[in-house]
């Protein structure tokens, strides 16, 4: 992270190095001027403003007539006077002023500093008060007479030849205000120069520190609130668990007696208006319900409705937020609220995957295999995770047959076809053998793979031959799957076919073919042994592998 900041400093350095514009004065020592190259859109006012001199003076100095329009001259001489120029040796030299150079005896040297008049330099201790007062007076007089031009045009044009502040070597004491004002002034004039943003950096750092301390405060506040909530939850939980335990063991059929059992303890009664407390009760009911069946489970559902918690779950079901809606569906399903099947069914094809998954689970919970009718309308893929979850739910049911499975096997949603194949496989729906065989010609290789796997559990006499037929058109993964299936469903009829596969390029196919051959052909060991003695590696290793497997 700190790389970022170092890079910023690196930028500052580069910017600091990039300050090389020089002012070179012309004229005699008593009549100094700077040759200014006029940029497009520059006016007398903008130039005067930049050099801290009245625009009329510039026009007059160049024997030209003053006007506010565009300048025709390519160069203008800008006079240097006490107002905008501080001579070398003058005690008013301050940091931030731009040096002015002059060539003398073939050498270039600093003869003074350009004072752009946007601030008044603080005079060093040995400077005379008279000098200062006269300087200020001059400055004020000049500015008053040229007030219009100073307030006039924009300074944008200056950027073209923007002089940069250079740290004066001969700096005496410098006031802070002066530096800041100078920086602000320069910033308006051109490039971003980080050196001029010391104050901003410092204040940014202070701000960051303040934010950091706020975050630290937030961490400890959060920890404190969390701990308090935990302790409070633990206290309440004791009462809730007690209430649930009483409800579970209740054998009363009489409504009045039941109501008495379900009466909230005082401790809970006080806080039952709180959503958090109600949620705590729902959560505990769900935890308890998961491991219960029969009358005890029914009691919990009755307790749930008696306490009016159904209303909470229904509100969640109506929520726009996916995680609240999904939570509501989960609660309704766990509390066997099958009367809510219709609104939940509508969510089985929700665009949010979590709402969709919870709704599908709820519908299967309510309707078992019949609940899977949502598969006919499902347009979204059904994930492997969700498939496992639903099959787990279905495995708890006594019924084992999926209605309209043949239609589902023709679904345009390929994940639905795969899911159906898994159900057929897990529940051994032998009647669907022919429909599964049709899937061996499906366009999607994943569907075909699952069809091959499914046939391991629902095969008949024709299966092996059919698999053998489709083998050559299959991808490697499916070929291996076919060989593994043939290991279970094959017979001596497949021996020749399997023997040929021993000579495929892929080692995994060789191994799978050898394994299947061992199951289908009584002479397989000899056959593989022969190949091994003729061809050596990898058949020798495969033979050892097979023998090892037989030993185990």
């Amino acid at each position, binding site marked *: *992270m*700190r*790389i*970022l*900041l*170092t*890079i*910023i400093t*690196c*930028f*500052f*350095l*580069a*910017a*600091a*190095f*990039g300050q*090389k514009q020089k002012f070179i004065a012309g004229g005699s020592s008593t009549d100094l001027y700077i040759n200014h190259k006029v940029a497009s859109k520059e006016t007398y006012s903008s130039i005067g403003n930049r050099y801290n001199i009245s625009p009329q003076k510039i026009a007059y100095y160049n024997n030209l007539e003053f006007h506010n329009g565009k300048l025709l001259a390519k160069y203008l001489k800008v006079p240097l006077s006490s107002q905008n120029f501080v001579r070398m040796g003058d005690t008013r030299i301050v940091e931030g002023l731009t040096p002015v150079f002059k060539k003398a005896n073939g050498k270039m040297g600093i003869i003074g500093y350009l004072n752009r008049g946007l601030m008044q330099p603080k005079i060093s201790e040995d400077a005379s008060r008279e000098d200062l007062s006269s300087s200020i007076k001059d400055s004020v007089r000049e500015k008053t007479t040229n007030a219009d031009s100073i307030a006039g045009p924009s300074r944008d044009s200056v950027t073209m030849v923007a002089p940069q502040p250079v*740290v004066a070597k001969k700096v005496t004491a410098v006031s802070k205000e002066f530096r800041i004002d100078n920086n602000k002034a320069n910033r308006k004039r051109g490039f*971003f120069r980080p*050196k001029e943003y*010391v104050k901003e*950096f*410092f204040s*940014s*750092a202070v701000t*960051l*520190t303040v*934010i*950091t301390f706020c*975050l*630290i405060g*937030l*961490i*400890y506040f*959060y920890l404190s609130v969390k701990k308090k909530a935990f302790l409070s939850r633990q206290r309440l939980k004791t009462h809730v668990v007690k209430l649930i335990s009483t409800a579970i063991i209740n054998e009363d059929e009489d409504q009045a007696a039941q109501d008495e059992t379900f009466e909230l303890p005082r401790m809970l009664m006080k806080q039952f208006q709180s959503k958090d407390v109600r949620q705590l009760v729902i959560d505990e009911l769900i935890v308890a319900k998961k491991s219960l069946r029969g009358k005890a489970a029914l009691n919990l559902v009755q307790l749930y409705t008696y306490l009016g918690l159904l209303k909470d779950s229904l509100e969640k079901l109506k929520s726009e937020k996916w995680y609240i809606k*999904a*939570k509501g569906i*989960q609660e309704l399903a766990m509390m066997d609220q099958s009367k809510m099947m219709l609104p939940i069914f509508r969510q089985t094809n929700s665009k949010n995957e979590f709402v969709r998954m919870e709704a599908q689970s709820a519908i299967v919970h309510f309707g078992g295999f019949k609940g899977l009718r949502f598969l006919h309308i499902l347009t979204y*893929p*059904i*994930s*492997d*995770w969700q*498939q*496992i979850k639903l*099959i*787990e739910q279905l495995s708890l049911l006594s019924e084992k047959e999926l209605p309209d499975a043949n239609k589902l096997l023709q679904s345009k949603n390929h*994940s639905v076809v795969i899911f159906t194949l*898994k159900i057929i496989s*897990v529940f051994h729906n032998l009647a669907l053998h022919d429909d599964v065989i049709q899937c061996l010609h499906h366009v999607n290789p994943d569907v075909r793979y699952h069809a091959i796997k499914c046939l391991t559990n629902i095969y008949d006499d024709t299966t092996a031959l059919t698999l053998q037929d489709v083998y050559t058109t299959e991808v490697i*993964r499916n070929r291996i799957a076919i060989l593994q299936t043939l290991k279970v469903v094959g017979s001596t009829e497949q021996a020749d076919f399997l023997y040929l596969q021993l000579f495929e390029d892929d*080692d995994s196919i060789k191994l799978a073919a050898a394994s299947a051959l061992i199951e289908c052909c009584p002479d397989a060991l000899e056959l593989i042994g022969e190949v091994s003695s003729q061809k050596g590696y*990898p058949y020798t*290793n*495969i033979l*050892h*592998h097979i*023998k*090892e497997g037989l030993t185990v």
Partner: protein
Amino acid sequence: MIWFDIISGIISYGIFLYSLSLVIIYVLIGIFSIIETVRHLRANSFTDFRLLASSPLAPSVSIIAPAYNEGATIIENVRSLLSIYYSNLEVIIINDGSTDDCLEKLVDVYELKKVDEFIRHAIPTRPIRGIYKSTNPVYKKLVVIDKVNGGKADALNTGINMACNDYIVSIDVDCILEQDALLKIVKPLMDENSKRVIASGGVVRIANSCIIEDGSLVKVVLPKKYLPRVQALEYIRAFLLGRMAWSKLNGLLLISGAFGAFDKDLVIKCGGYNPNTVGEDMELVVRMRRYMEERKEPYLVKYIPDPLCWTEAPTSFKILARQRNRWMRGMIETLRAHKTMFFNPRYGLIGMISYPYWFFFEMLAPVVETFGLLSFLIMAIVGLVEWHFFFSILFFIVAFGFLFSTFAILMEVMSYHQYKKRTEILKLLLVALTEPFVFHPFVVWSSLQGFVDYLKKKKSWGTMTREGFKKVIVPN
């Protein structure tokens, strides 16, 4: 002078844009990380991971753990792996030519017997000396391969060749896994149907000072020593913020070698781990992504913020230097090997964002940082910039770093809250304050040495000695 001005201008404003981009990236990282973590936590509340453990339909997984001279801890570590409850699982330990008694110990304790198993050579590796399986059915999931030393990548490739299952999970054998780590890392592989999930990873945490019993983590404790402690903070920042955000964008280039799950079929198609790099974990992910991008197949690399794996961090500067040196060399090697992706729109987000990010802001970082700091310091000393400016910037830097670390700690507290004691949080905050002055300069220096070593074509991994975990019986 004009040329100097132009060059300095280009540098100035180039770097300004660079810095600005980085600021934006970090802000986005923070935002994406929050969004993704919140979403994950909410989604997790509906997930019962136990379903996977017993389901016959769960994806089959082969854990691959290379071991080199791990004799001191190997028995406990393998026991930890065997205790993972998952029905479709095999555990493959590769003894990568250890010179200690690692193999002998395994043979004795797990009743291993040399077998004549066939092993495919889908990926070329160094020769195998033997394959061992247990005669005790209790350890039927265990396979031990003894091979000639060839480095971590070569050992992992041997494991891939041996693996029978659909997914491989590579793991550092000395890592301690959370009880449900495997379930959590496998689930993302099953969440998508429209896109192929090619790899999945999770958060790695620092285990120093934690209490470990029988290869399981009993109690999480903040490391007592300074170096591991600061690395604990560093890992929180990197895993909870950086990687979560890249995961949200599907731009993750790195799944930690300490614990990551991969689609075996694709790994083989891509040629397995590259034994010629010391950053084999990153290189594999980049290669797999490149493979998928070139074939225009939709895919995802998933990442979850759950702490899954606990590893021992270097406790001495010497070992830390070796580790960071190696990380840098690995990164350079990976980026260089896949330079064709650099700003190449053919590779989508990876080519246009992930790769350039790693190149500019991870690989070049130590160089630019050192250059920046040193020249700035020199300029302050010779008077080209004023000291008050220097210290303002320094203050800004430290404040920014501290803020970022504090934000990471806040995220940790609000999400998984592994360090329960308030004093531990305070210690983490204090360590965040000292990091810029002690730990960070050292890491930068080590990375620079990595640069130099890369240029010298140094290939060694460097010995990684470990202190071993604290084994304390927790009082009742």
